[in-house]
């Protein structure tokens, strides 16, 4: 798994990449009450706002970590946004992307570098 400075995680799966936010990010956001996901099938560029997370406190944007196409979004988050608080790095993935260039993923931090960032 790789990590961005924006507290997203990326997990390659075949020729796709699964994207979510870290447990640390979920804890900082507090109780999550709504997740607005993109439409599957759309092309996105790195840095695009693709997801909005609403916690009891505020709305936060989640950016596309790499260029590519959104191929699937997590249907479980619509009914149960609190899944993000319960299982941020597992069941609460946000979307799967087909990256324009799989090598883009390699540029991000590994777990120990990320843990240092949030320490």
């Amino acid at each position, binding site marked *: 798994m790789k990590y961005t400075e924006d507290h997203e995680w990326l997990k390659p799966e075949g020729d796709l990449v699964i994207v979510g936010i870290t447990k640390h990010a979920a804890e900082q956001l507090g109780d999550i009450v709504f997740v*607005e996901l993109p439409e599957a099938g759309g092309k996105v560029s790195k840095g695009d706002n693709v997801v909005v997370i609403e916690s009891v406190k505020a*709305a936060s944007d989640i950016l596309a970590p790499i260029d590519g196409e959104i191929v699937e979004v997590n249907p479980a988050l619509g009914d149960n946004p609190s899944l993000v608080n319960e299982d941020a790095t597992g069941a609460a993935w946000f979307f799967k992307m087909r990256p324009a260039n799989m090598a883009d993923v390699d540029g991000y931090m590994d777990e120990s570098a990320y843990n240092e960032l949030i320490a």
Partner: protein
Amino acid sequence: MADPSDAALKRTPLFDLHERLGGKMVPFAGWEMPVQYPLGVMKEHLHTRAAAGLFDVSHMGQVILRPRSGNVEDAALALERLVPVDLLALKAGRQRYAMFTDNNGGILDDLMVANRGDHLFVVVNASRVEADVAHMRAHLGDDCEIEVISDRALVALQGPAAADVLHGIAHGTGTMKFMDVGIFHAGSTELWVSRSGYTGEDGYEISVPADKAGILAQLLLEKPEVEAIGLGARDSLRLEAGLCLYGSDIDEGTTPVEADLTWAIQKARRKGGVREGGFPGAERILGELAEGAVRSRVGLLPEGRAPMRGETQLFAAEDAELSVGQITSGGFGPSVERPVAMGYVATPHAASGTKLWGEVRGKRMPVTVADTPFHPHSYKR
């Protein structure tokens, strides 16, 4: 995150307790206050409605108005010059909601006024203490001695278990009714208690000597029913209860009539009343009472799960160009399990059930005008 202005932030007598409890401290109205504890906003909110929550509200201003004549009616009549509320009818041992108005009919602050027999005791918003005290000194100074109480903390104990818990510590508080005030004792410590609050629940606000606040809070928190609750849940609780937040839902730009606070303006101060008018902005406020205001504060229920927050613009149609109002407070209501909001809309759109559209991140989403409270009040009347 170190903010350069943090150095100037004030701390309440319960600051050490907040830190010990793991409270996440944030700047609020010049004070360093807990926004939440490890339990989190959602669970803190639900716990308050299920059992009891303890809130530190020591940042609020406590002020005594002592009549120079010795007659509390003179203090009541003096304060009536600044608020559209019947204070002469406020009996000893009772409290009333009021608002300071300005010459345009706008709201300078909202406050609680208690008649404590030989003087009035008022509680005002933290962000407005200095302005309110200056305002009262300027207009009431001839009639009242105005004493800002700086050696007492203020805590709120709210929720269905509050009465039993407090009665066990301060005997006699259990038989108080909503908006009663009185002096009670926990051991030898004098508590100034009112049965009121800002959550829609039964509960109390308790003024306690600053050096005894920690002990009282500990005593309350030792009870299994009581959890410490931060400002985050305080906000979601009051929003579900349909209660206004000064600075968001009411301010100098809103009148009490627009704000749907006419229930706080008693007959004696209205047109034809025994003490009609006589407060700042009376002409506009009494005019609006008679004719209606051009806009009204309403409850709003967004469809779906996306919260609509303050400043969301409201439209009468999905493709309408001009907005008909805007949201002033909004968020997720943990007890009603859906987003809730309040805001101002042009009066023709203010009827309960009216369908409107709120613009969230460039998209128009349906929202319905609704009665408040969203969660029923459970005051002990």
